């Protein structure tokens, strides 16, 4: 059984996709659109790489990537194709699926069986539910949820056998391609911050976030929020944690005045620790958190800030 593992960008879920493929067969080939990515493959135990080359594929071009893959699948006839369950992995496999007329299961945590049908488990609602499903097709298409790959490593190999593949792409496909790219200004990013101080409806106003910003700054963290805060215009959407916001996994998530609706919870549930501050001890965020404080966030947070500053002064004085 041959499985193609497609690398579309630098997303770490690529390793998860390779891991899931390898759980099904030893015969895993990589597909890359960037020849320099081949150097990484021996470490991942991959012996064969298909390097897809065409002038239309110089920059990310989802439609052309999908068409190129559809042609490669026709030629190599794999049993399945896997890709990372990242934004671009899902997009490219959707194009492959649409062009090849095949079903696609996105964000799988498990794939089993030998095809016709495959058994799989995928996440729904960003992790609110798991779905067990069957996928029946001549070639199974799957994207793999970040983190779902097996954690055991693989023995590296010495060399990769490189097959060059040049698809026939109509010039028209160049229409869906990146034409410009700009760097955005960097602060402490919500996605990567070690500490996130987050506020919901309980904060009460845009102004109320000043305290959260102060605490975040003291802890070297970022400010987050719930959808109520974004909808009220208190915070930009880029601060929103949850299903349709950002999914984060900080060391500590401090949830202030956030009730803990599932759509919010799936965005923060991967935090190592959660501290909830809420006037309602029965709020789901309070019962599911690691630590909780019952009280008005407008009293609790200033007291915490004072305490941190006080201890800092003591440390400086004694050290």
């Amino acid at each position, binding site marked *: 059984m041959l499985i193609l593992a497609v690398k579309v960008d630098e997303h770490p879920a690529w390793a998860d996709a390779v891991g899931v493929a390898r759980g099904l067969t030893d015969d895993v080939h990589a597909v890359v659109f960037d020849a320099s990515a081949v150097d990484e493959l021996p470490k991942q135990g991959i012996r064969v790489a298909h390097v897809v080359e065409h002038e239309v594929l110089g920059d990310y071009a989802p439609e052309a990537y999908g068409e190129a893959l559809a042609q490669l699948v026709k030629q190599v006839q794999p049993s399945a194709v896997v890709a990372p369950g990242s934004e671009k992995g899902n997009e490219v496999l959707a194009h492959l699926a649409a062009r090849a007329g095949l079903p696609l299961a*996105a964000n799988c945590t498990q794939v089993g069986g030998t095809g016709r049908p495959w058994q799989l488990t995928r996440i729904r609602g960003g992790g609110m539910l798991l779905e067990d499903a*069957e996928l*029946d097709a001549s070639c199974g298409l799957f994207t793999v949820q970040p983190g779902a790959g097996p954690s055991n490593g693989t023995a590296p190999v010495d060399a990769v056998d490189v097959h060059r593949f040049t698809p026939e792409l109509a010039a028209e496909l160049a*229409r869906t391609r990146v034409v410009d790219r700009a760097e955005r200004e960097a602060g402490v990013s919500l996605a990567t911050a070690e500490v996130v101080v987050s506020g919901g409806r309980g904060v009460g106003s845009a102004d109320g976030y000043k305290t959260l910003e102060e605490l975040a700054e003291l802890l070297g963290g970022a400010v987050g929020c719930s959808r109520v805060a974004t909808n009220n215009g208190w915070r930009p959407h880029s601060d929103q944690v949850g299903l349709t916001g950002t999914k984060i996994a900080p060391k500590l998530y401090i949830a202030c005045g956030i009730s803990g609706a599932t759509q919010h919870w799936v965005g923060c549930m991967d935090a190592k620790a959660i501290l909830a501050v809420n006037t309602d001890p029965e709020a789901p965020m309070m019962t599911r*958190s690691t630590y909780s*404080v019952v009280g*008005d966030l407008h009293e609790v947070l200033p007291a915490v800030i004072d305490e941190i500053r006080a201890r800092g002064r003591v440390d400086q004085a004694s050290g």
Partner: protein
Amino acid sequence: MSLDILVCVKRVPAPGAKVPLTEDGRDIDTRHLGFTIGPHEECAVEEAVRLVDKHGGSATVLAAGPPEVAEQVRYALAMGANQGVVVDTGEDELDPQATAAAIVHAVGELDTSFDLIMVGNESADAGHYQVGVRVATELGRPVVGGIKGIDVLDGSVRLRRDVGSATEVYELPLPAVVAVKEGLNLPRYPSLPGRLKAKKAQLRTVSYRPEPGGLRKIRLRQPEDNRAESVLLGHGAAAAPAVVDVLEELGVC
């Protein structure tokens, strides 16, 4: 240039802190839940209404599913969309291939040839990440996902998408399909007159039973939640020392 826009929205359950399942585990138990459209799609509707305000044209909203999807179509009309289409596909949840087939069929039934079709980046309940791409491919149109900025130029659209710390720009010729994400805009709450108008609006219904695709849902399950019980650090401002102890223990201050 004036634009005829189609927005595809999906009726999804809006659970609170728990997602109840039916006894046979095949579905969400929606007896006590409300329904909504996903936030990405709400932004798509808002954007369509704004683009039509600015450039002229029309905004049509379409939902495929059981006849009850009319409720979500009317919500979008209340936000300012001009026409509503219900694609009645029966009670069962469709797989993404069948959903796309239903939408494509309905588009063929309508008199408008849409310049722009807008969908959400992923549906809020199922998250298949593919219905928009399948519709676009079937119609032979270009499509990009993850879009958080749209400018209409003469005969094309300029689209922005955030990727890591960068913004990518695409320029698609019209007619095109765009899959958008929440953050594109701040959707309005429907006004009272808007709601009244939407309530009375005549919806177009297209009945269609598509062939099932190759992805078959067997059962839904709750994910495991093996967090230990929450540790209460205290009440009010008096909890501050205990909180800072924890912060120190975790090595974050």
